[in-house]
């Protein structure tokens, strides 16, 4: 009964989103204020109904209702409750339902927080958002209905793919979807602006918080996915340049570019056309990602059950929305007047440079991801484009960008002074060089060439705070005034500094693990001790056991250095009962603050007690994810800046502007 209710709610959601699409659009054409005013209510109603549908599916999973095909195929009665719930989106149908729920959620958020939007723009945005919801609701109902029943109902389910039964997966897809789908709002704003033919600095002000929210979630989602792949797949890698990973990375790159170009548009009314295009592209890449993942046209280390019909349907959605919005863009872009001119050396110039490198890098990733498809279609030759290509093309494009990052915030709008900015960065340069050389020569004995890469990472981390440091003016004003000034800085300044520093921390982790990583594969007998990367690993025992829905063999290893025990790791080989599928659980011991010792079990060697063990030494690897945590925190801090807060009361904003004006009136230096 509840399952049928869920199905019915989904159909109702389709009907409501159709209304959400059509009614405001007619209102815009006929200038009917009442039809415009109904858009927010329709949007909220769509969200509520889709939420009911999602809750019904969750209910079917929690109660293990195997008469529902989707539950039967992906759940198991002995599975822990947490994984029953996460199983809802651990499969194609459920994850598409989550996608729609997120779409409807963002629409409802605009309806709820968008009180200060002009009513026509708001109605247009919600209408476009509704059209996306319509497309995906049709997709689910026609090709991937999660509420399909089985008759007679089976007694037991087939269980969720075991590698997906993990807390990382519980969080990763919802975060990723909030990011992916969040760009739909930017897209809706862009298309609405094109339809309305009105684009100004205020538009950028409305769009920026949504971009920032999506970017924060996407950053967190990608980072979570990377960490999940690292510890769960047991391959010791944190990024594979896999098509599915690229599918999430491309919207991130474009979203990052959008974040920066919207800044120019908001502050200087420049780069309007470009910003609109980026807003369209960010969501287009999200759609492309969905197509690549769902259609299975590309071979990926992530898994894929594929259905040509589904792929075709998503391709049609893709063509309609990307093609339609680009045609609209081509028709209307000419009518948009670009604002302020600027000197190439200026804040605007730096942000143009940022956009140039980010979009070019995205293009190289896109080419590499799609090239195998093209080659196979043209010549029939099967090729794969992997990490060598991406490292070869992507890294050279990132190096100049990363080098330029600390300069950006130091340049003034309109016309900047490069020499003055460089002068302020000499201390940063000195610190990063010394730190890099110290690491390369003294601590790790790494190749001297890698010193450059370390220097780049420190340059980013230290240089990101140059702007904040300079604004505080400790040297000139003394400590107490400096502190007071630091506290008085707008949160957005802190956000910028921290986000750039987070990027530097991630870079440092990548450089560290890439240049200093070590690994070995060996056979070990219980009781044996081996020495690797300066640590001693003792293989104590291999013991079998039983978990809730799996059996396991657990190896127990003690890691020590110079006789001092650092920790015990317990890597496992599991076999899941329902699917008879084996998985590997890596044993990970963090050494010091950021480095990790990573053990994975291989197969037992026949005719002996030996087992194959693969050991990695991963210096500084956790910095990669700590850096993204800093980036996410930076995004949230920026978001909490009063100037950006959505729906901040107008009065409060006016007060703040008056205070700012008063502050400006005082002599700054």
């Amino acid at each position, binding site marked *: 009964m509840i399952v049928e209710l869920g199905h019915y709610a989904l159909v109702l959601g389709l009907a409501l989103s159709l209304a959400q699409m059509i009614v405001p659009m007619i209102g815009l054409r006929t200038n009917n204020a009442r039809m415009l005013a109904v858009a927010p209510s329709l949007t909220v109603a769509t969200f509520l109904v889709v939420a009911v549908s999602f809750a019904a599916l969750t209910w079917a999973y929690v109660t293990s209702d195997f008469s529902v*095909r989707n539950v039967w*195929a*992906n759940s198991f009665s002995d599975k822990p409750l947490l994984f029953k719930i996460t199983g809802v*989106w*651990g*499969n*194609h*149908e459920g*994850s598409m339902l989550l996608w729609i729920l997120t779409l409807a959620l963002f629409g409802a958020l605009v309806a709820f927080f968008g009180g200060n939007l002009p009513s026509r723009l708001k109605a247009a945005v919600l209408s476009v958002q509704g059209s996306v919801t319509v497309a995906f609701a049709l997709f689910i109902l026609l090709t991937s209905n999660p509420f399909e029943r089985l008759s007679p109902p089976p007694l037991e389910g087939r269980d*969720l*793919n075991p*590698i*997906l039964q993990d807390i990382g*997966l519980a969080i*990763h897809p919802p975060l990723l979807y909030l990011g992916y789908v969040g760009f739909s709002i930017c897209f809706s704003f862009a298309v609405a602006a094109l339809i309305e033919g009105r684009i100004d600095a205020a538009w950028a002000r409305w769009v920026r918080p949504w971009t920032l929210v999506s970017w924060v979630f996407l950053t967190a989602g990608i980072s979570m*996915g990377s960490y999940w792949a690292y510890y769960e797949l047991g391959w010791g890698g944190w990024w594979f340049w896999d098509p599915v990973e690229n599918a999430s990375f491309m919207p991130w790159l474009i979203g990052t570019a959008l974040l920066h170009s919207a800044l120019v548009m908001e502050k200087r009314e420049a780069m309007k056309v470009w910003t609109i295009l980026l807003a369209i592209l960010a969501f287009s890449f999200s759609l492309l990602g969905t197509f690549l993942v*769902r259609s*299975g046209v590309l*071979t990926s*280390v*992530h*898994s*894929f*059950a594929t259905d040509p019909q589904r792929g075709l349907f998503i391709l049609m959605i893709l063509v309609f929305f990307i093609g339609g919005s680009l045609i609209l863009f081509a028709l209307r872009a000419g009518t948009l007047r670009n604002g302020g*001119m600027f*000197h*190439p050396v200026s804040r605007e*110039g730096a942000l143009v440079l940022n956009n*140039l*490198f980010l979009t*070019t*890098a995205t293009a*190289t990733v896109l*080419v590499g991801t799609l*090239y195998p498809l093209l080659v196979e279609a043209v010549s029939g030759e*099967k*090729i*794969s*484009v992997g990490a*060598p*290509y991406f490292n*070869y*093309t992507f890294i*050279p*494009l990132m190096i100049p960008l990363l080098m330029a990052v600390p300069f950006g915030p130091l340049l003034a709008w309109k016309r900047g002074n490069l020499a003055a900015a460089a002068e302020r960065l000499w201390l940063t340069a000195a610190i990063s060089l010394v730190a890099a050389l110290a690491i390369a020569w003294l601590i790790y004995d790494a190749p001297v060439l890698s010193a450059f890469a370390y220097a780049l990472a420190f340059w980013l981390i230290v240089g990101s705070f140059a702007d904040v440091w300079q604004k505080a003016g400790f040297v000139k004003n003394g400590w107490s005034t400096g502190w007071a000034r630091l506290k008085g800085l707008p949160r957005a300044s802190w956000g910028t500094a921290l986000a750039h520093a987070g990027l530097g921390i991630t870079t440092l982790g990548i450089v560290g693990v890439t240049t200093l990583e070590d690994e070995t*594969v*060996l*056979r070990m007998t219980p009781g044996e001790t081996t020495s690797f990367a300066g640590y001693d690993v003792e293989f104590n025992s291999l013991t079998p056991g039983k978990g809730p829905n799996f059996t396991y063999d657990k190896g127990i290893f003690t890691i020590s250095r110079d006789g001092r025990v650092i920790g015990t790791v317990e890597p496992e*080989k599991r076999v899941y009962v329902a*699917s008879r*599928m084996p998985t590997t659980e890596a044993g990970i011991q963090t050494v010091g603050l950021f480095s990790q010792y990573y053990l*994975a079990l*291989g*197969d037992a*060697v*026949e005719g002996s007690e*030996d087992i*194959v*063990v*693969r050991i990695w030494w991963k210096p500084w690897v956790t910095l990669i994810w700590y850096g993204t945590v800093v980036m996410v925190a930076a995004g949230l801090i920026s978001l909490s800046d009063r100037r950006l807060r959505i729906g901040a009361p107008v009065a409060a904003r006016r007060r703040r502007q008056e205070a700012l004006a008063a502050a400006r009136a005082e002599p700054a230096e």
Partner: protein
Amino acid sequence: MTRKQKRFAVIFSALAVLGGAVALVLTGLSEQVTFFRTPTDIVSTASASENEGRLRLGGLVVMGSVETLDDAAVRFAIEDANHAVTVRYAGILPDLFREGQGIVAEGTLQPDGTFRADTVLAKHDETYMPREVADALKEQGVWKGEASGETPASSDY
């Protein structure tokens, strides 16, 4: 700087970056890609130059061929309808690696005709074969279809 010069500076730098990127992409795509080969491709190619560089070798793992060597490396053979190639791999085999199952090994072909793999891929989902392997077997007319008639569990992420 005049308006014209400013515009020129921006366009020029954009073209420089794009040009550099295009050069990188073109050389990258000609030198850094990995070609897919079946055992038959490898055995039957006349010139050795076709099998130079990184390759992906795909086929079925020969029953009874998997053995662990003293240095913990694994040796096994990959076959298709006509031929088999011996593969040496130092690392841990993926969880779903089984004899008789379709896998892809990535690495280089050695002068002695064996294959040295640095990566071995099997699917996360046991009902599936790597797509290239399935296609290659279909071409050779030995594809038997999915192992069971059940609806395959879809499992992304």
